[in-house]
């Protein structure tokens, strides 16, 4: 677009991918999000110091922070997103449910009144019935959210949600929702402009979730036909219009087995999974966000374009965590990064070899996106692409994702939000010991890497923790006899 960019970053992110990609970098200082990416004042200072005209908030941290959006507006800069008023209405799950109800949408049954009193909370929970969901009113991304199967677990879950929500959003208010199960998570991508237009760019299916966080998303949904797409789109557009929405946003629904859909929430920002919509529509959502923020009209931007989904796209989120071990996140240095390339394969990666995966942030390493003529071909392409990924040095979920996309229910499109809860064997993976080939590979990698490694070691101080290979060097087993 010919626009220069300024990346802001914390100390651990000084070498991060977004910093490398930007025209200019501005250090915010500090390690934790609270000392860096959540400091709105520092970010505005950075904008002034670098003569920036607009701020894109990304999809974490302050992207849905009403105070920040307002501060950006007040400072005379452009916030690339909705205005702070519609963000405030939708940013709280409570007022969002209100807005959806006023647009005649069904919301998930539950209680969104005052829940600060534990006694009220327990009474309301009993009225809704178990299982139910406890959610932070300000929450998102699975943070501050718990599934409670029985009454005995309610208060522990509530306390954990309050703590997480307070830490992540500085707001510990909660709401309760009845658990709709079985259900699919289907969401509609909307785009609004500053001229009152709001359109739908179709749906994404995001039913494959762990810990209430999406890990595999696709477009279109195997459960949505043209008629349902039209009805869900109309509902989403009406809700967005009711709050004067004027940027890219997502209206999330639960879709039950009978084809009834319930409003869940609206995300007033770009979603992590936006690439699957980009692949099937051929649009660049970030570009459109910037265009509409600059005042362009959607009618002009998309004139003559067919917005029906073309082909099928799937995204898999590559996380630094062990699904086989309770999704335990792993931090540390990525020794090797190999990402697949090819027609219809896109990798939105945040890492490179040598990067330190820090404990401070969400453990998302990269997003692998494939596009193919149909769902079957897309599943095959995703499987092949995952097989060719390598992120070594820390645990990752690559093999887990690989197992999912090869699963017969997944291939058949039988998706539901508790898909993984119902497949513990798939989550655990095979418990078989490594095959001989793994040892052959490890030994020969070591043999062939050794001359190179030793050259490196001569110039490098040896103060680092001795890893297994280093111990091996010490024994001089290679070529020394």
């Amino acid at each position, binding site marked *: 677009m010919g626009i220069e960019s300024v990346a802001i970053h914390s100390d651990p992110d000084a070498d991060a991918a977004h910093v490398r990609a930007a025209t200019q970098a501005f250090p915010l200082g500090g390690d934790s999000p609270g000392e860096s990416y959540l400091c709105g004042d520092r970010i505005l200072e950075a904008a002034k110091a670098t003569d920036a005209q607009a701020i894109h908030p990304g999809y974490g941290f302050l992207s849905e922070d009403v105070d920040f959006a307002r501060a950006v507006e007040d400072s005379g800069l452009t916030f690339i997103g909705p205005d702070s008023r519609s963000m405030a209405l939708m940013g709280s799950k409570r007022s969002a449910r209100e807005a959806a109800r006023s647009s005649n949408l069904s919301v998930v049954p539950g209680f969104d009144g005052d829940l600060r009193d534990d006694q009220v909370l327990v009474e309301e929970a009993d009225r809704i019935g178990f299982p139910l969901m406890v959610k932070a009113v300000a929450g998102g991304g699975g943070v501050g959210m718990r599934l409670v199967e029985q009454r005995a677990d309610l208060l522990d879950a509530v306390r954990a949600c309050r703590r997480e929500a307070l830490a992540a959003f500085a707001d510990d208010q909660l709401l309760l929702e009845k658990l709709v199960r079985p259900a699919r998570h289907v969401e509609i991508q909307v785009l609004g402009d500053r001229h009152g237009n709001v359109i739908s760019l179709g749906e994404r299916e995001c039913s494959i979730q762990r810990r209430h966080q999406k890990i595999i998303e696709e477009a279109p949904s195997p459960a949505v036909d043209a008629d349902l797409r039209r009805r869900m789109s109309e509902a989403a557009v009406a809700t967005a219009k009711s709050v004067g929405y004027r940027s890219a946003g997502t209206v999330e629904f639960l879709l039950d087995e009978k084809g009834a859909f319930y409003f869940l929430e609206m995300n007033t920002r770009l979603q992590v999974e936006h690439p699957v919509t980009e692949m099937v529509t051929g649009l660049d959502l970030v570009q459109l966000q910037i265009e509409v923020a600059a005042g362009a009209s959607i009618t002009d931007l998309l004139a003559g374009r067919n917005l029906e989904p073309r082909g099928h796209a799937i995204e898999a989120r590559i996380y630094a965590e062990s699904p086989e071990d309770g999704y335990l996140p792993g931090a540390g240095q990525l020794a090797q990064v190999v990402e697949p390339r090819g027609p219809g394969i896109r990798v939105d990666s945040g890492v490179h070899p040598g990067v330190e995966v820090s404990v401070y942030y969400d453990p998302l390493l990269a997003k692998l996106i494939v596009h193919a003529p149909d769902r079957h071909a897309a599943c095959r392409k995703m499987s092949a692409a995952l097989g060719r990924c390598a992120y070594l040095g820390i645990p990752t979920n690559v093999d887990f994702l690989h197992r999912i996309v090869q699963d017969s229910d997944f291939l058949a499109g039988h998706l539901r939000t508790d898909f993984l809860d119902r497949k513990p064997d798939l989550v655990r993976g095979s418990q078989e010991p490594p095959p001989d080939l793994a040892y052959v*590979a490890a030994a020969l990698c070591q043999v062939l890497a050794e001359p190179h490694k030793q050259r490196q070691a001569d110039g490098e101080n040896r103060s680092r923790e001795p890893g297994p290979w280093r111990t091996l060097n010490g024994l001089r087993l290679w070529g020394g006899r």
Partner: protein
Amino acid sequence: MRVFQRDFHRAGQSLQVGVQHLGGDRYRVEVGGEAYEVSATPMPGGAVRLLVGGEAFDAYCASAGRTIQVRVDGRSWNLRPDEAGVAEPEANNGLVEAPMTGTVLKVLVRPGETVRADQDVVLLTAMKMEHSLEAGASGVVAKVEVEEGQTVEQGTILVRIDRL
């Protein structure tokens, strides 16, 4: 010429792995009692291309903590070297360790308290999420080694439990 020799642990048993260089890109690899003749060529980007019995594989390998992570044929494996002097991690040894670097949010037990193996004893927060850590062994809490709010490295002992 012998160019590699290493003992591993596989499925509770010791496994000897040795490599002989046969010349050029040819190697003879012994894994336990089995022998394989393999062609191996380093590839750009850190992979090693293996030709084993007419099949080609790209292999990658790196150290990850005490294990060796290897990726071959579309799967990853963690191999455990048999290191002299390093005690075998004993299951349920009564030590609750930090499985990852993080911050101790809450210590849920006190010294002298009796705990079940599946009882949560510490809440750890890392990467935005809370993780509860179980005792791992039934017994009596002997000592709490950390304080709430303390940042701990992976492997730090958090709680010691005298097993019953």
